């Protein structure tokens, strides 16, 4: 990255946003894998690998996978958050490989959130 000027901040913001914004003809879904120490300790790395494998198996190009920090509920790790076009993000908890595969198939591919593994939908309040 070259040196950033103040005016670049807005440009980076817009570019990054546009690149990763969910839309029908761009990224259709975003999967956040919560990978703080707590998440990694309870197997988040495995969940990430599972997801990436599923995605590369069918050469999916429109799903964006992001490793991120702890989502706060350390007791329910590993957790992921899935957001698809037109739907609020859904947090899945206590995952393992099988559950992740099921969620991948049903929610990301089928567009139907899997209620039994889901804890909550929506965004957290920041004010």
């Amino acid at each position: 990255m070259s040196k950033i000027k103040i005016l670049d901040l807005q440009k980076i913001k817009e570019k990054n946003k546009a690149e990763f914004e969910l839309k029908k003809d761009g990224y259709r879904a975003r999967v956040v894998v919560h990978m703080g120490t707590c998440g990694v300790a309870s197997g988040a790395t495995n969940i990430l690998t599972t997801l990436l494998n599923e995605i590369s198996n069918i050469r999916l190009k429109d799903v964006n996978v992001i490793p991120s920090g702890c989502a706060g509920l350390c007791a329910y790790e590993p957790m992921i958050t899935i957001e698809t076009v037109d739907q609020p993000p859904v947090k899945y908890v206590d995952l393992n490989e099988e559950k992740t595969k099921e969620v991948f198939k049903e929610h990301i591919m089928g567009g139907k959130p899997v209620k039994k593994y889901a804890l909550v939908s929506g965004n957290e309040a920041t004010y």
Partner: protein
Amino acid sequence: MERFRAYAMLCAGIGCIEKGAMKVKEALESELKKWGLHEEIYVVPTGCDGFCGEGPVLSFYPDAVFYSIPSVEDVPKLVEEHFLKGRVYHKLTIPGPYHKTDIPSMNDVPFFRYQALRVLRNRGLIDPEKIEDYITRDGYLGLAKALTRMIPEEIVKVVADSGLRGRGGAGFPTGKKWELGLKIKSDLKFVVCNGDEGDPGAFMDRSVMEADPHAVIEGMIICGVATQSHKGYIYVRAEYPMAVRRLQKAIDQCYEAGLLGSNIFDTGFDFDLEIYQGAGAFVCGEATALMRSIEGKRGMPRPKLWRSAVKGLWDKPTVLNNVETFANIPQIVLNGSEWYRSLGTEKSAGTKVFALTGAIKNVGLIEVPMDTTLRTIIYDIGSGIKKKGRKFKAVQLGGPSGGCIPEDYLNIFVTYEDIEKSGAIVGSGGMVVMDDSNCMVSTAKFFLDFTADESCGKCVPCRIGTKLMLDILTDICKGQGKEGDIETLKDLSEDIISTSLCGLGQSAPNPVLSTLRYFKNEYEMHIRDKWCVTGVCRDLCTFYIDESLCKGCGACVRACPSKAIIGEKKKPHMIIQDNCVQCRSCWDTCKFNSIKILPLSARKAGEAEIAAMAAALTEIPAERELVEVTR
């Protein structure tokens, strides 16, 4: 709170915020004021109901109408129609949440509902290893503002006016510290971030450094601008490898992007930053010991003849703040002090991050406005005690420097004022919940064991005093307690507090004092009756099966590691005292509450005596010193 006729609940989920929810809030408030309605209708930012596609979303309570407000220009008409004319403004309504998904929304789940994220605003949203993600969430805009549109005095003023207090433990006003840091003239000044986090049960700072390292870095650079300092250190314990890695990566990215180094944003301002890894000694979290450690010396506190802001690292003026304190800064500079003060109380403004652990269901990391009660945190956010049948006993705040707060005080706010009156401290934010299977004498012993071990050894009262206290507590837990021990503990506490050099010694007796204040009779029963009612102290209890309650299910027989329980199926069981090792496994397993914990003397007592002891074993009232907590 005053009573309002109606509430306008504005979604403050990031989806809606990004789409301008806060502008809608301002417009709404000024419009309500225009009509003189601001005392009747209250605008509250709330959690997310999941209409993220249609934000900013506003709902009215008690009317239960949902509006989507794409532009602030719609606000006057909405207020006119809805509040003045009293009719629904159909142009903007959206169907209620019932029509959405069947997965609970943020407002349905107490863990999320009561939180307000500022420090943790990017948690789980961005890739902490990508600077672009941080910038997309308005990252480094605060720094840009500080460098181009503010003079150092203004930055210090906004931080002072915000009421932000140090989140590392003592709660010292951050603005005051920075003011001094700016005033002092020196060829070299330092900014130091304290990421040592040594309290047992605390993991706030680690999570912040892991989830949002750039926020800490931006806060530090802003501090550099405000105090005219050009060099910073982040002190992190080496036991936090992921935090160290992510911070290092973030620092590298900053150098590459010109956000660290020379001539930042072409303003002529230079700032360098490096990580210093500590070896994980508790005392190195103390500001002066930490600075010695960075100097390459043994981490020991020095007398506070002058403030660190005057003479700190290498005897140069140094502003040292906690990780969470710094992570608050970019948002304060960007949004102003009024914004920061919109949450919390007068003396404790804003939000605080807590690490919620122990015997609680939702172990995790939370951030709440400081005027949240302990009860909300423990029973709503934490979802109460984890183990079925167990009851809440106390919550430990502030780690080894803090104290325990019992049930009676759960209605106090987690503000510096209220918590201090209860005998504990807010500390850095570790919150360990204990249920009624915890022995308070052992809890105090645990913390003294920790401080005696971590005392750097420089001052006699701390080095020897904590050891003496630990010896007395160990004796009490082993059944060798004597009359007068409680008084000796109190005496020693006073001496250690008043004669130790640093905060470690000055606060080390707190866990003992606070348990003595609320659970004195547990100490007395340990000493006088040789009885630990929770069965934690093995030498002070006898496990006994109440035959009238035992169903003979055999669960305890299977749980017992030393084959001490006998009995036929479906008939009352019995414990062979000679085989029992007092491990408490049977008590933990029994679903019928038939295992009773009696004093040591019951081991040799006859049937009749035991029956009498068991009968006396009703609820033990805690002898508490009642304090008025007023706000």
